[in-house]
């Protein structure tokens, strides 16, 4: 694990016997050709199926293209419509809300579980595996079970909640106030185990002497955590928050299965809206405009977050 930190310094020794200049030139060219040959399959796929569609989406967003009608240039009309469209702002704020709630909860919970599961106890392996398991299974499939658990008539979780006095007679998924928390909950459940594993690896890479030294200096458990463990985990915290934030901005699977964006569009995120406008209403131009807003939004946020954490990276 630590070996990756200190990647062996590679000596680019060309060897003592240097070939004469013209042969070296030819060698450089040949090497470049070989390199491009190695790269070509991947680059072709990336260019045709990733880069081109991305740019094409930018172009389509300036047209009124749909599956039937040929693309017609409309300038910024889609964006003008978009920024005046309550459905867009609804999806935008739902996405922001989803990300703003799910990201911190997931990160803090992952850290707490990692610290908890770093201790030795009977059954620890079972607990770790169980918490990690949701990450392995398909969210689209397991969301069916969650929807069923939350069904107002036959769902076990609804029944337990109603026994505990928390009653939502229409079921949480059809309740405008509870649908969003429900899909957020499933989102946290899905990814917390993955981030926990990253934190666990981080905890194991902290030299034991550091915490021991703090303990001898009279630091309590909380102080040791706050002033020794937490700062030394900031690399992991950076990675985990960036990954969690980007993933939450793209939330789709459990929402599609559990609420389909409803009730009353209360859980419609940007990706859900792209799906609806693009693939149900077949408004390709308008859908492409939404997806470009998402692109810029994700890119800006990850850059900001990266720069923010860049300043506080630790090496030990």
């Amino acid at each position, binding site marked *: *694990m630590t*070996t990756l930190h200190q*990647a*062996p310094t590679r000596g680019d020794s060309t060897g003592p016997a240097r070939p004469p200049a013209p042969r070296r030139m030819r060698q*450089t060219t040949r*090497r470049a050709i*070989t*390199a491009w040959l*190695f*790269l070509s399959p*991947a*680059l072709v*796929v*990336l260019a045709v*199926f*990733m880069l081109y*569609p*991305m740019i094409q*989406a930018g172009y*389509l967003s300036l047209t009124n293209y749909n599956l039937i009608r040929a693309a017609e240039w409309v300038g910024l009309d889609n964006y003008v419509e978009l920024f005046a469209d309550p459905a867009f702002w609804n999806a935008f704020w739902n996405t922001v809300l989803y990300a703003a709630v799910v990201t911190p909860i997931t990160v803090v919970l992952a850290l707490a579980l990692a610290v*908890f*599961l770093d*201790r030795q*106890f*009977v*059954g*620890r392996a*079972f*607990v770790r595996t*169980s*918490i990690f*398991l949701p990450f*392995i*299974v*398909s969210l689209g*499939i*397991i969301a*069916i*079970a969650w929807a*069923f658990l939350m*069904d107002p*008539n036959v769902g*076990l979780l609804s029944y337990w909640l109603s026994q505990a006095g928390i009653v939502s007679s229409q079921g949480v998924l059809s309740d405008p106030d509870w649908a969003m928390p429900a899909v957020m909950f499933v989102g946290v*459940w899905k990814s917390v185990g993955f981030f926990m*594993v990253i934190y666990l*690896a981080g905890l194991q*890479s902290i030299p034991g002497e550091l915490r021991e030294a703090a303990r001898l200096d009279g630091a309590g458990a909380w102080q040791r955590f706050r002033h020794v463990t937490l700062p030394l985990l900031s*690399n992991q915290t950076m990675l985990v928050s960036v990954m969690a934030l*980007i993933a939450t901005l793209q939330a789709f*699977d459990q929402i*599609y299965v559990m609420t389909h964006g409803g009730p009353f569009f209360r859980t419609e995120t940007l*990706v859900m809206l792209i*799906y609806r406008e693009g*693939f149900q209403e077949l408004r390709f131009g308008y859908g492409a405009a939404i*997806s*470009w807003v*998402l*692109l810029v939004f*994700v890119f800006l946020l*990850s850059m900001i977050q990266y720069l923010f954490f860049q300043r506080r990276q630790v090496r030990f």
Partner: protein
Amino acid sequence: MTTTLETTRTSTTPEPPRRTRTPSYLRTQSVWTWVTAIAGIIIAIGVLLPIIWMTFTAFKPESDIVSYPPTLWPREFTLQHFVDVWDRIPFARLYVNTIVFAGSVTLISLLFDSMAAYALARIDFKGRNVVLVLVLLLLMLPFQVTLIPLYDLLNGFGLTNTLPGMIIPRMTNAFGIFFLRQFFLSLPKDLEEAARVDGASEWRIYSRVIMPLARPALLTLGLFHFQYNWNDLLWPLIMSADVASATLPAGLALFMGQHVVEYGLLMAGSLLALLPVIVFFLLIQRSFVAGIATTGLK
């Protein structure tokens, strides 16, 4: 010689006397260990609730599922849902589709990713940094932005609703290239230099020296690819117009959209769809988790 000397010295060292009684502070700690263990197991069962619920419900007859109050444990057992699921949903078809989709994406992507990563990590050429920056940029951008033009493009080729249409755009992956490049950089250069002195071609070095050394990384990445594509919902959902041409997650979601109330059938189907992934994971979880742990350290 030295070994014998050392062994004799160790054997003559007297063993430290064993403690007979556990000191009291250790005993309070062991109480805490038990509290921790119980708390841990409660958390674990809570996390597993949907999977447990899914498993038990799959064996309940429809009459038990709808009776109030709902119970976790089935009041009656039946295997009917596991029989029906093959007729009601084109389940065998979905299974084959999913295996072909996830399997071929994994294999082809491992080949293309590793070739590109080899060039980026091991061959010194002009433009390498430009390519690397491009890969990192593609890694950062959300793939949803490509969906509409990609669908349009594949539709133009008549590849929508087909497996090749689903597979081809996924034949390489920016994350895979980056992941393997990082791993290749950490490999020692000695073997490769020796092969180069012997006049081996780059392809030979890649296939005979680097790839065998990279087996753990390839295994981890392969698992990532396989699991990601097996589980993916949005892409197969867009690419398939009906249940029969979809993969398991998309097919079950489409089926659920049409027949909301048939929970027993859905749970049996879901269980069958999740089982291979869960079993597979439990078999190889050690290397999988180790792989994630190393990605976490960059």
